[in-house]
């Protein structure tokens, strides 16, 4: 059972990392436009598209 001596702090540490990533993402403005980028990636650059 001594494994929990590393598992619990490890879990907490990982949670903390996710929290920091989330704050970073919010501050980057990644949540400001939820639709735009999702669609932008689907727009290809062909001048004339197949109808």
């Amino acid at each position: 059972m001594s494994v929990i001596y590393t598992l619990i702090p490890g879990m907490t540490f990982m949670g903390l990392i996710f929290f920091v990533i989330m704050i970073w993402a919010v501050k980057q403005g990644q949540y400001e436009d939820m639709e735009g980028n999702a669609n932008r990636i689907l727009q290809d650059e062909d001048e004339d598209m197949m109808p």
Partner: protein
Amino acid sequence: MNAPSTLSTYNCFHCGLPAGTGSTYKKQLGGAVRDFCCLGCQSVCTAIFEAGLHSYYQRTPEGTLLAPPPTPPQDIDSYDLDEVQQEFITRSGELRDIHLLVEGIHCPACIWLIERMLQREPGVQSANVNLAAKRIHLRWNNNLNKLSNLIRALARIGYSAVPYDQENAEGAIKKSNRSMLFRLFFAGFAMMNVLWISIALYSGADKGEFRDFFHWMGFVLATPTLLYAGYPFYRGAIGGLRIGRLTMDLPIAIGLSVTYAYSTYTTVTASKIGEVYFDTVTDLIFVILIGRYLEGMFRQQALSANKRLLELQPRVATVIRDGVEQITATRAVKPGDHVLIKPGHKVPVDGIVLEGHSAVDESMLSGESAPVCKSAGAKVTSGTVNTSGALLVEVSSTLQNTTLAKIIRLVEDAQASKAPIQRLADTIVPWFVLVTLVCATLTFIIWYHNSFETALMAATAVLIITCPCALGLATPMSVAVASGLGARHGILIRNGLVLETLSRVTHFVFDKTGTLTEGKMSVAVVHVAPGKDVQEILRCAAAVERYSEHGAARAIITEAEARQLNFSGIVVKEFNATAGLGVRAEVNEKSVLLGSLEWLTRNEIKPDSELQAQALELEAQAMSCVHCALGGVHVAVFAMADRLRGDALQLVNELRAAGIGMTLLSGDRKVVAEAIARQLGGMEVLAEVLPQDKDQAIQRLQQRGEVAAMVGDGVNDAPALIRADVGIALGSGTDVSVESADIVLMHNELDKVRLATLLSRRTLLTIKQNIGLSFLYNVIMVPLAMMAKVDPLVAAITMPISSLVVIGNAARIRNLFNKVKP
């Protein structure tokens, strides 16, 4: 795509709306003839094809209907002035950054089109479209291209863009709410982890070898939570103490500190009998932060009202210097300058008309929707809209000295000097805190003779058990539920705290124009000369008035339509209007004159004495009369009045039955205001009041000890709306009055005032019940804790239950309107 679908009708190639058979707008584009519904769509589509971006139409998702292009913004050139740009750009110099708010973005293909098009313009460094917020973040080189050119380029492909001041619009409140959200997230994260540890401890780990380890883990998680997420409570508690008030934050801060200190003591000394309560610390922070966050979202954005007011003043003015028109920033205009105001533009300054006739829409100031006629010598006020003709105005005051700016100052004064709303919970909290502290001290003293350890544990238990959680949630939860319910019934509650105040209101103050009345003229009485046909006269009058812009004209047309008269086929010739007097035209070879009595005499028509007497009588009742002459004979009088709103009488009667005092405030003439008051069964009337007088009228009521509610809609009501204990604005009112009010009635139904009062009573009742419930919980648990009988497990279970009961009770407000007819 939007190709022609059926044989006989064509849909517009650009927007997909029906273009009608054999549409007038056709153009050879991309190898085929395309049909359009309007010139706007045609030119937008032409511009898109010319730019070689026509695959836009293939990119548009199937089934998306594009809208016809919005009208491009006015005064685009003014945005090139550095002084104007200063307010929007986030970096100056050659390279500039700006946010544009764009109308007309509807689908992902628009992103593609806008970004492609802008990147082809010279000088554009980057263009980024935010689809959700309908904004463009643009970076361009000011030496290579002008902002107005870029806005015009957007207008050509069907998007209307205006600069957008992000700082102003989003502001400090949003920022503080966001930092609150981060704290909430962190507390949530810590709480979830600490709870796992607690579960392990409760299920037996506190006896085994991991006891110390779990304690230390709890410590590691709770410490940053207390310092970071719990910081607002400490700041609030200390801030309150500094001004000598016991706030809600104080018991929370004390409870948190004691719980944390005790748990840390147990952890550090590795005591074998003590318990740790790190889970309590994090839970408490998390739950109370949720309440705070909800409250923060409802907080009145006091600043924004003033900003909206300032935005009513146009940024540029057309100044005439030595006979040359010059576009100048408003702040550079000086008193004595001559300013030209074109039709459709806003008046940028206060001034006196030198030349020209026009109808000016002053609805934002007075709530009166009928435009007011202005000719030489009349005063115009900045922020009002010039609707029909051009006016040359001599500037009397600008910016900070205008009537509008004075109202802004009144609004600011009212905001600064208004006493904060005393919440029910706020009045109880200091006593609650005091009693808690006394109980804890007593417990410690009583048990000290027994042993120090037991005394400390029991005293701490008292502090933890009297967890102010339920008390802290009592108000915000009830207000949140009530606000949601109100919104669904067209009652927008901007400041949730007034829900407590509204049920105590003893005096209602109503604005007249636009609030109790509809704010527009309608025909109240028609008198015709003996032997004449009413219908025939109305038909002719309505046919002629179609060409007039005057408020009375619309009233006559509405009246004719209401009587189901058909006047669309009547041919009107030689129409001409003289501002301030009336109109004349020819119908069926007969002259038709409509206007004042003076207008008739000027045109050498003898007034009919009987009609004249009737008109005088009507004018004594505060109606304005329009005289009509057909073929040179005075035949009719139309009496115009501002009609009462349908539900005004009902509301006033109900309030009177409830014993609530009422006052009618109006900037209008005394006769008119008194006529309205008479129709409503009589009430106190204050007529011919200026905005500052409205504010003072409320103040006088408050000094008499009345709790006053103000119902209004114009900018001139804004100071009074803020000053009043409860400000209620009509949704049709100006942005500023809406921003200044605590409650907004979305559908302009006065009857909703009654519903809002009901809602308020119910909310207050629920708040009282909730406070009662949390007291009941304390009355049971505190004595147990003082006797040192509280098992930590019991405490852990009962504490969340007390919060849940409060939340559940608040949720019951939702059933309120099920019984009442909405």
